């Protein structure tokens, strides 16, 4: 290889990797440093306060509901898009992609305006003693909104790829639609679904903007882990903020590893 080509190749490599290091790797490395700056026990006690634990628990609860809802929706919607004929598929696709185009605070605002006292559904719920805003239901709705597209988008191409001949074969062997779905379709798409679930989980766990608006950020009650981190940081309890961030970052890295293994299984 000519010297000039080699220079170009190495130059490009170090440019790209250098960019990555400066932007991503070093900052993430920093939070571990900051988290344990005052020792391990200080870090540990900062994230095991009742408020902190409640925040983590709440985050997991909300994410779990959102993931289950969006997975069922995602698989059903993907089947609809790929295996049936109807007009308006383009519109459906556009609506599914909407959460990608919309800012999370706008999502929060939309829910505020809908379920608030003067909102269309406001009185319907409040008069019956059901709290949507500043409570779990609102936070769940917000999280479902922003994490909606992932499972659909991952399952659709897989459904296209496997084709429907296996499903036809199952039919000729006497299977009804549920048996076909459960025993033939679902196993065939499982890695696509898995990958979508992982993406949905990551997005739901990390949700900040929409939930910040909709929850009222009531400490100990409607604060999720990201919101708790924000509060701690704002109150200069940096150890707590950094340690919780580290925990969330580790969860994110675990998510990445899961994403990778699913991607590989999907490819094979």
């Amino acid at each position, binding site marked *: 290889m000519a010297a000039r080509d080699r220079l170009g190749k190495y130059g490009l490599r170090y440019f790209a990797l250098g960019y990555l290091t400066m932007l991503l790797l070093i900052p993430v490395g920093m939070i571990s440093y900051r988290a344990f700056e005052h020792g391990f026990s200080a870090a540990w006690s900062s994230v095991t306060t009742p408020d902190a634990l409640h925040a983590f628990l709440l985050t997991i609860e909300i994410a779990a509901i959102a993931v289950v809802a969006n997975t069922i929706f995602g698989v059903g919607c993907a089947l609809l898009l790929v295996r049936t004929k109807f007009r308006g598929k383009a519109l459906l696709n556009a609506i599914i*992609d909407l959460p990608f185009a919309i800012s*999370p605070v706008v999502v929060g605002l939309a829910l505020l305006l809908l379920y608030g006292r003067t909102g269309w559904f406001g009185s319907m719920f409040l008069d019956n003693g059901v709290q949507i805003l500043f409570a779990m239901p609102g936070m769940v709705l917000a999280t479902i909104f922003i994490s909606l597209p992932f499972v659909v988008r991952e399952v659709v191409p897989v459904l296209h790829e496997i084709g429907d001949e296996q499903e036809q074969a199952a039919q000729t062997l006497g299977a009804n639609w549920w048996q076909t779905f459960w025993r033939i379709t679902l196993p065939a798409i499982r890695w696509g679904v898995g990958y979508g679930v992982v993406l949905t989980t990551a997005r739901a766990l990390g949700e900040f903007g929409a939930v910040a608006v909709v929850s009222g950020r009531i400490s100990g009650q409607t604060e999720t882990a990201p919101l708790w981190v924000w509060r701690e940081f704002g109150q200069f309890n940096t150890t707590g903020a950094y340690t919780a961030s580290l925990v969330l*970052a580790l969860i994110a890295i675990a998510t990445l590893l899961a994403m990778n293994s699913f991607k590989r299984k999907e490819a094979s």
Partner: protein
Amino acid sequence: MPRLGGAPLGRGLVTAYLSVIVLIPIAALVSKSLEGGLSGFWDSVTSPLALSALKLSLILAVIVVAINLVTGTALAWVLVRDKFPGKALVNSVIDLPFALPTVVAGITLLALYGTNSPVGIDIAFTRVGITVALLFVTLPFIVRTVQPVLLELDREMEEAAASLGASPFTTFRRVIFPNLRPALLAGTALAFARAIGEFGSVILISGNLPKTQTAPLFIFAQIESGNTEGAGAVSVTLLVIALLVLLVIGRLTHWSLRHGR
């Protein structure tokens, strides 16, 4: 072949779910924002703070996308064409901004490039700081849309160009780039939409100053101070801009797929 007998039921359920989760809230947003009539809407959007916030978001988004076009393509290239130890690790790390909560992203950047920076770089409360945060969260978009295209690219085209005397740069410009164009456009659209709407990573770095208040930060501030009309107007504007950009880029991608390839 349509096989699902329960298709109408399925369609009904999907429509119901999407309505409750997405459509009705958006409809409420648009409706409430227009409650003061078009003139009220216009006044809210053109107030000085609102305008400067929108302008800031747009300008930063454009800058960020431009930078990402270069760095994203470079990263994708290195990941597909180059070989070095730890490549698989690097490949997974690219997705980190997707997986990391945005507020954590903000904190990590501040840890390194903020007030107590160990390397002496302090970009907290600056527009540069916001730009860096936006670069962080939009990193994966262009890389991930370009990678599969590069993987599929027929090497023989480049070999043919080389045999005809083209330099590597010319080959890139006239053979490779046109084939990457649709993927670049798609990645640009996603990155742009994400950049103008980004909130979590930006809120810590911006420090609540007017000069660093992007549109989402403005919206949030208005909500906190009870001015839901102002918030709504700018929200709808932001949404419309995002949709327009997606639409335009969608058309360009369609055209590009038909002609460039």
